[in-house]
């Protein structure tokens, strides 16, 4: 689906983001690349280090492409685990205009 409007695509992250989910997540992100994207983390129950890597790399890629990457509706588990990993949620997002 083509978005002429600057509104972003949305990718709902699966509940379990463990190592078996990393490959699919990467693939999904690669197909959505080059356009603004909103990640919905409302269902995430578990986040593993490998999916975290993918998310961090995605943020770098979106920043390189100068496209917005945002997080929406983060679940409690998602935030707790990010905190455990020493990753602030805002380091996973990118906004073209300076905030």
């Amino acid at each position, binding site marked *: 689906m083509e978005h002429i409007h600057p509104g972003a695509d949305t990718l709902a992250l699966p509940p379990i983001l463990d190592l078996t989910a990393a*490959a699919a*997540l990467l693939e999904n992100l690669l197909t959505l690349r080059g356009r603004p994207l909103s990640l919905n983390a409302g269902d995430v*129950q578990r986040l*593993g280090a490998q999916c*975290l890597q*993918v998310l961090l790399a995605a943020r770098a890629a979106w920043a390189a492409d100068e496209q917005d990457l945002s997080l929406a509706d983060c679940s409690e588990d998602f935030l707790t685990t990010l905190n455990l*990993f*020493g990753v602030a949620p805002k380091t996973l997002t990118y906004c073209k205009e300076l905030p």
Partner: protein
Amino acid sequence: MDPMAAIRETFFQECEEQLAELEAGLILMESGAAEAETVNAVFRAVHSIKGGAGIFALDALVRFAHVFETALDQVRSGTLATGPGVMNLLLRAADVLADLVRAARDNGAVDETRTAALVVEFTQISNLGHEPPPPPKSQPAAAAPVPAWQISFTPTPPLYAKANETALLLRELRRLGPIEVTVDTTNLPELSEMDPEGAYLTWNITLEADCAEQAIRNVFEFVEDDCHLEITAATPAEPSLKPGDVITGDNGFSFEFFPPPVFDEEEPLAPPEPEHHEPPPAPVAKQSPVEVMAAKAESAAAVSATIRVDLDRVDRMIDLVGELVINEAMLSQRVLEAGIARASGVAMALEELEHLTREIQDSVMAIRAQPVRSVFQRMPRLVREVAAQTGKQARLVTEGEGTEVDKTVIERIADPLTHMIRNAIDHGLESPEKRLAAGKPAEGLVRLTALHRSGRIVLEVSDDGAGINRARVKEKAIENGLISPDAALTDDEIDNLIFLPGFSTASTVSDISGRGVGMDVVRQSVAALGGRISISSRPGHGSTFTLSLPLTLAVLDGMVISARGHTLIIPLGAIVETLKPKAADVFPLDGEINVIRLRGGYVPMVDVAASLGYSDEFVEPDQSVALLVEGEGGVRAVLLADAIHGQRQVVIKSLEANYRAVPGIAAATVMGDGRVALILDVDAVVKTTRSELSRPEPSVLEAH
């Protein structure tokens, strides 16, 4: 079953294993045979129990395990010397830990004063093992500088491939103290080039915890080969604040020391505050116990290639194999009856089947065979407790823990052994003063040995005490009217008097072993297992109880005989030899009993059929075959039967369970032709030859 319940069950099973490991390790340490790895294993055992208990929010267990673990850590780091006092404390702590685990499993209660007392003792020894504590130590709640560790952790792809997870490690680390984590993404490749299963991140962790480096390394124990790990002390300026002050803090401020579980109950959803200077609340860890257990199971599976099997399944298999053996025997019988030649294909194939059946049976029995270790491991605790109660010093040495015996036997030797060991300490060993006076070390030695001997398991309990006071035993037996005052007894016969019912040599009846139901109960329960017990004693040097038991209670090698048309089985273990009696060698004795001359000696004869009431007439000795059997305590007799049909392995079917106990008959079995054959109770039959009261055979008295 509900998956959580199943995981919980697994946890408690693992706890039992860890407790066994703990006990074994501590014993090794106590004996001075411990290596560094032993101490590590002991530490790991407690650590694992603590970790698992945390998942299930078993707070009392976690708290005690933590104190215990901290002390062990001090031992490991060398700040606490393992003298006898400390070892004793550690051993008692292991007992309490076992109680706590069992209480948690069965939702039971524990003696909290005992637990608390041990915690205080730990505090004291940790202070002793230390330099004089600086004043701030008694005020841990004050803002004393907490030492910090700097940890750099870089996983490699195999770490993830083995289903380990950084998040879990970080969580585990957070149990040690507050952590501050930053992630280094320098090595992260471009999104399109990255391998989703690669490992590109490095975590830098600052851990504020007053723990040893090894405690941190333990967190990474299962992954240390699959990551780069650097641990440096961030505040090396405080060498005196090494392990131990946590405990010291606990001394005065026990509430401060373990607040998280309390907080946890009150506000279970409260997120951990970064500046909170206590270990974070448990809820995070509770999120994914499945994950943790799965990871644990994985690593455990890598270590040993064993499986846990429900006992019912094994028992069912034993039953089925028993049926198979019977069926195979019936088939052989049919083939024989059909008159098929021995060299024919059918007979040959049948023979092969017989071999296979036998092998299957042996293999199935081997599944059930267990080392006696599980029983032996309970004994050190018993020794400690009994020694403490009696004010004696005792050390237990075990040998042959690896000796295997069928589960049916294992289950039933614990009680007799417990009684015998209690007895050895309570009655066998002297008080430390008496021992020193006799020129022996104050600490008495109790030795527990297991070994295989001619198809039986032999268990020995020996002590290096004073030995049996024969004069007193005899005096007491006369006093109780068990023997006549003028009876001339050999030393061995006097020793064996203690197996008589109601016999206790202790001058005061203690609540340990002198309940008046002493060794005769042991003897009876051993006899019920088809076993024998005997004693040998050397005055001043101690006594040895020897227990001989069949390896299994499920099958038996027996000799098939016939007596007046009845088929009977005589356990092969009891048979010494078979012979063809000659009338000239038989002499009547005392009207009822005949004796046979055998290599210069005389042995009483028993007509099997007559003794079981099959016939009133005695068989003519020269018309029969004779089997020389040896009963309990080496008592011999010659059994007379009509014919011997051969040797066969039979599956034991309990007569008591299916019918009722019959004197002279131990059990029954099903023969090849489908008929039931009775298994002779050799001891009972042999007893009938000994009917004089003056003979101090315990059995005689029991026969009344």
